Structures are given as structure tokens and as C-alpha cells.
């Protein structure tokens, strides 16, 4: 029985996806869970896995075309069997979905061509399309020992999510075992720091025109929509971080390198627990209704080449600090290496953005639609504070929440920030 694979819906607001590259061509066998194609959404390039095992009988869209979510893109079945999708049922795929994109696309990336597909017999289709043949998949280039690959295969670990600790960054067995144990690996800084050269004369004074990436365009579109349609308001709170910094020091003293907790890991857990008390901020507006989400899935903005992505810790309120930390590290690594999985970026109910590592006192963020709010987290800084009439050093951190005024008001936002203080300033509450 042939099965149809559809363009997956990878986010609340994903309307369509571009099929960037076929990984499996017609006639190739594919197992359930193997990568069939790569698609590009507004958020990221992700791999589409086949939900069935069999032979790829038909590709229903050409590489380079955009189709709406839930549109059939491929048929997988037994070799030679009758195809369930007749040519007149093929999706009419638009070349570039976004009407506002006027940049010309090469002609060969145009739509599916129904005339070429009028025959449904597999043997009438060209079996080899040299130009369409996939290049070696990215995962095949991941350096891993044969044993690491074997264990990863057996245990269902995606090598792309693993950071190798062997010579030259090779993934070895211990790295897979670390993933399986739920502990995590250091996210290697992908770009070694280079010293600026003392070249005082600019080599060129001419203007440069740099085309924006798909990701950059998507960020622009979404945030223009957010900032122009959502009435934002902002509330800032300063947190006393001394106890948390102490506790973090103690915890990290017993954790191995690569698994140490960041300040943000604590904040994420605190945010999730506070959201449980304020379901109205863990919500979205739908027409005349506010949908309060049952799950608390906190999104974390991650800097990636060419923009930023939000990775999502599912059920953040129910996970331990180590789980949260491990998941964020793994997802951020995948995001940075362009191998993010659909589930990594899907299902966020509340977003956070942390610029703490850049020594930022305070900033405000734009709401990630359709969510109700976003929290912008600054650096934990040692500053002079007044205590008992004396000026003493103390650890402080500012966070600013941006809230959709159609859903909530300043008082609720302020109370939420106070509730968060209850966790961050008594951090033992994050452990129990």
C-alpha cells in the first residue's frame, strides 16, 4: 500500500515550506525515520523524515518549490505498485510563495510541470536525474568513529546533535553515551576567535550589496507583523541573584565540564514555574478568545549564522535543571550547525532572549507571535547595592517582559515578574 508523505507543519504559523533538496530519489529505498528531503521554513532548514518504509515511488514537487503545509510531496510504497496520486491531483506549487518576493528565481526552479507527470507508471518516469542527485548528506560528513556511528544508529541518536570530544572533534562512543545519559557536551565554539588585523586602511570604500537570507527575511516579516499588530508594553524587574550565583557555584563544582549550568538554565526553570501561576502569559490570542496553553514550553532565542532561531524546551516546568541545560545545549548546537530538527523549534508557548553573555544591563524584546509575551534577560552583574544602610557589593540581574496588551495588563506582568523573583531569589525552589 503506497503511502503519501505530506509537507509537515512545523510551527503554529507555518503556512508553507520550500522543498530545498531531495535526499532520496525515485527508486531508492527508504526506512521509516530516514531523511527523505530537506525543507526550508520561515524558521530554518529542516530534514523531513519518512514516516513509512519502502521505495520512493514518486516525488510530487520539484526541488526549489514551495508548497502549503499538508500538501503531498512524495509517495512511498512497494516497487511497481499502482500510485494513489493521479497527476491532476498534484499540488499546484507556486514558485515563490511569498508574493512580496520579487527577486527572480532561476527558471529551472519553477513549478511542478504537470505535462511531465501525466504518466503515472513509475517505469515511465526518468529514473536517474543526474542534476537532482543529492550530494553526500551532511550527516555523512560528520566525523565519528565507526563504533560511535554504530551505537548512535542502534540507539537512535542523531550524530548531528552530538559534539565530538575525540581528536579533531571526532565523535567517539563516550559522546554518544553522554547524550544517552542525558548529560550533555560542550558546545564547541564553531568560530575560533581571530585577532583583528592592524589594517587601518579600509581595503574598499565602495558600498556593498548583500542579499538577505531566507531566515533574515522571515525574521523581518514576522517581527514587522508583531511590532505593527501587537500592542506591546514593557515591565522591568531587578532580581537579587546572590543566592542563585552561590548555588550555581556549588552545583557546578560537582558537575563535569560540558555539563555545567548557566545562569540562564536557572532562569528558564524559574520562568516556567512562574508561568504555571500565570497561565494568561503562557497563551495566545485567537479571535475573541485567549488560548491558555496546557503545556509550558519555554523558547530560547539562539544566535545562528545569519539570524536567530528559537529552540524550545518542552514541559520546561517539569524538567530538572540538568535536563533543561542539556536540551538547550544540544538544540543550540544543532541550530548553529544547520541541523535543527522540527521538534526543536516547534511548540513554544513563551519565549526568552538572553544577552547576558554580552554584559548587557537591560534590553527589550519583540514578541514572538502568536505568543502573549517574551522575557528579555540581561547580565547578572556585581554592583553596589544598599543593604542595611550600607553600600555593599551584590549580584543583580534585570529582566524585561514584553506583553501583548490585548491579552494582559501591566499589573499581571509585574506580578509575574515578582513570582519569578520568588524562584530566582530563593533558588532552592528551583530544585524541588
Amino acid at each position, binding site marked *: 500500500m503506497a503511502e503519501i508523505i505530506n509537507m509537515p507543519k512545523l510551527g503554529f504559523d507555518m503556512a508553507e515550506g520550500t522543498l530545498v533538496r531531495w535526499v532520496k530519489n525515485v527508486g531508492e529505498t527508504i526506512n521509516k525515520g530516514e531523511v527523505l528531503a530537506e525543507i526550508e521554513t520561515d524558521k530554518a532548514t529542516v530534514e523531513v523524515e519518512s514516516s513509512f518504509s519502502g521505495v520512493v515511488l514518486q516525488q510530487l514537487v520539484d526541488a526549489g518549490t514551495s508548497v502549503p503545509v499538508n500538501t503531498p510531496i512524495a509517495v512511498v510504497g512497494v516497487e511497481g505498485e499502482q500510485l494513489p496520486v493521479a497527476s491532476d491531483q498534484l499540488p499546484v506549487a507556486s514558485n515563490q510563495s511569498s508574493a512580496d518576493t520579487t527577486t527572480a528565481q532561476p527558471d529551472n526552479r519553477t513549478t511542478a510541470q504537470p505535462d511531465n507527470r501525466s504518466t503515472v507508471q513509475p517505469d515511465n518516469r526518468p529514473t536517474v536525474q543526474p542534476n537532482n542527485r543529492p550530494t553526500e548528506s551532511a550527516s555523512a560528513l560528520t566525523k565519528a*568513529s*565507526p*563504533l*560511535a*556511528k*554504530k551505537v548512535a544508529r542502534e540507539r537512535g541518536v542523531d550524530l548531528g546533535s552530538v559534539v565530538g570530544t*575525540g*581528536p579533531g572533534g571526532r565523535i*567517539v*562512543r563516550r559522546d554518544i553515551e553522554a547524550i544517552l545519559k542525558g548529560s550533555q557536551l560542550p558546545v564547541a565554539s564553531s568560530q575560533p576567535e581571530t585577532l583583528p588585523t592592524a589594517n587601518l586602511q579600509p581595503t574598499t570604500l565602495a558600498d556593498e550589496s548583500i542579499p538577505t537570507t531566507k531566515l533574515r527575511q522571515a525574521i523581518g516579516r514576522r517581527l514587522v507583523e508583531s511590532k505593527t499588530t501587537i500592542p506591546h508594553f514593557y515591565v522591568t524587574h531587578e532580581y537579587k541573584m546572590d543566592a542563585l550565583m552561590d548555588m550555581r557555584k556549588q552545583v557546578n563544582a560537582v558537575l563535569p565540564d560540558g555539563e555545567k549550568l548557566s545562569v540562564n538554565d536557572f532562569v528558564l526553570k524559574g520562568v516556567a514555574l512562574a508561568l504555571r501561576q500565570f497561565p494568561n502569559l503562557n497563551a495566545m490570542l485567537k479571535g475573541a478568545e485567549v488560548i491558555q496553553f496546557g503545556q509550558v514550553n519555554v523558547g530560547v532565542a539562539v544566535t545562528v549564522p545569519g539570524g536567530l532561531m528559537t529552540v524550545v524546551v518542552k514541559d520546561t516546568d517539569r524538567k530538572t535543571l540538568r535536563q533543561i541545560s542539556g536540551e538547550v545545549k544540544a538544540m543550540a548546537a544543532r541550530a548553529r550547525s544547520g541541523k535543527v530538527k522540527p521538534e526543536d523549534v516547534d511548540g513554544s508557548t513563551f519565549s526568552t532572549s538572553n544577552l547576558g553573555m554580552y554584559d548587557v544591563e537591560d534590553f527589550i524584546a519583540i514578541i514572538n507571535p502568536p505568543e502573549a509575551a517574551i522575557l528579555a534577560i540581561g547580565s547578572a552583574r556585581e554592583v553596589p547595592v544598599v543593604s542595611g544602610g550600607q553600600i555593599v557589593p551584590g549580584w543583580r540581574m534585570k529582566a524585561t517582559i514584553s506583553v501583548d496588551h490585548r491579552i494582559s495588563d501591566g499589573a499581571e506582568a509585574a506580578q509575574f515578574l515578582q513570582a519569578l523573583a520568588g524562584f530566582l531569589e530563593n533558588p532552592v525552589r528551583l530544585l524541588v
Partner: protein
Amino acid sequence: MARITMREAISQALMEEMDRDPAVFILGEEVGVWGGTYAVTKGFYDKYGAARVKDTPIAENAIIGAAIGAAMVGQRPVAELMTINFAFSAMDYIVNQAPKLHYMFGGQFKVPLVMRAVGGGGRQLGATHSQTPDAIFAHFPGLIVVSPGTPADAKGLLKSAIRSDNPVLFIEHATMYQTRGEVPEGEYLVPLEKSTVQRPGKDLTIVTYCKGLELSLKAAEELAKTGIEAEIVDLRTLRPLDMQPVLESFKKTNRAIVVEEGWKSYGVGAEVVSRMYESAFDYADAPILRVAQKEVPLPYNRALEQAALPQVADIVAAAQEVMK
């Protein structure tokens, strides 16, 4: 168990087999009246007489040729090559006649011949007398190549070699005759063609034989101080090669080095590593490294000779490299 030297163990094996079987006899340069260049057959001439302990001309092709003929007519000769470097003078007999006669004459003849040869460097004997060319001989089907690393194995393997109906090249190391080890009392045999674990461990497999075993055991003690427990597999017989203990160990440790005294190029390590990858590729967690002699004719100068030969420190370094 008695603790005896490699020399005593080999001597005992020869004497026990000569006592057991009157067809066993010895021939070679200076093996009789002089008692052997390495004194292995000291006293044999007096005990067994000139008919069974034959001094020969300095002509290796004559020694091996005569021994092959004797073997074909029912004797069990043990021919001694003063050094394995002299085997090249008798190469046609060793690799082209002895291993093939049984095949070429459709099984009409057997060649129950043992060729004892002294190999290895480290005694400042110069480039032409210090080689470890074991791999050359192990290249030829039909020739069994044995090279023991302990006195107990030397005795048990030599007795098995003498009883084998196939030609056996039995390589002893020039610097190991004084090596002492526990040897079982009384009659015992060690089967040919069987590798064995000489030291159990869990972190790393060291595959080696002969002199490499002695060095690897010392290296394993060094490694143990840093928390690395090496398992040492001793090949003992280079052809036919028994990979089973090697593969079992490697599937457990997933990391391995191979230590040999000969040159690395086209050597024993190349063969072993290749078979490991063929049979256990999915178990490799790090590249398998080889420790071997530097690719130069072995220098006479003592310091240079030692620098060219594999040392304990080289084994430790290679082990640490694959443990990264």
C-alpha cells in the same frame, strides 16, 4: 612451577623431543662441539653423538636443503639458522621448497621440518645481522611461522613444532635467551596457531608477539599507573594467524595498538590491523595505531640502534594517543 630462562626452556624442549623420538635430530653451524652460538644445544653432542647433532658447513642452503631431504624420507630434523638474516641465503628452500613440496607432489611427501632461527636487534650486530624480517616468511602459505614471547610458550610451542608434519620456522629473539619465566613441570604442549591473552585489561588492546610482548608488558604497567588497563594479546604464531582472541579483546576495548619489532611497512601490524578493520570495523572507537621499527637499516651505534627499535615509551605514547 620452575622459573627458567628462555634458553633453558628451548633446550629442554629439544632434549625431551630427542629422547622421545629417535627420528628427531639437530643440524646447523656450531651446534655440536661448540654447543650452539647461543649455547642452546650445549651438552647435546656429548649426549646424543655426531649422528644426531650434526655440525654443518657455513652454507645455509646446504643446511635447509639437507634437512628438507631428511624430512621427506621420514626424519624429523631441527635445523638451526645462526641468525634469521642468514635465511636469505637459503630463501629458495625455505619459502619455495619446504612449504610447497607436500602440495606439488600431491601429498606423497610430508616435510616435518623445524627451522630454528635467531632474530631481532638490540645487540649491536649491525644492519645485516639485526633484522626482524618475520613478515617476509609469514607471507608464504604452507610455512608455519612461530615466534614465542615467554619461556613457557617457547618450550610448549617448539615441542608442538617438532611434532608437526608441516615445515615450521621457529623464530627466537637474540636478546631474550636470559628472559626468565614460569614453566610448567613435566611434559606439556602449547598448540601452534593459537593466539592468547597474556595480560587481561579492559581499556585498550595491545596486539604483539615475541620481543614486543616483553616491551608491551612493561608499557602496560606504566599505563596502569595512569588508570589505563591494557589487555595484551600475544599472537605467538604469525601464520596461520589466529585473530579470534584479538577480535574478542578489541570488541571489548574498542581501541587498539599493534606492537612489532620489525619495520612498519608491509609488516605484521599492517596485516593484523587490516584484519581487525575487515572483521570489527564497527567496533573501532579510534584509529588503530602501529608501533614498529624506524624505517632505516638498523644502526650499529648503540644509542642510534635503540632509537630505531621500538621502546616501552613508544608503546605508552601510542596507547595514550588512541585513548584520547
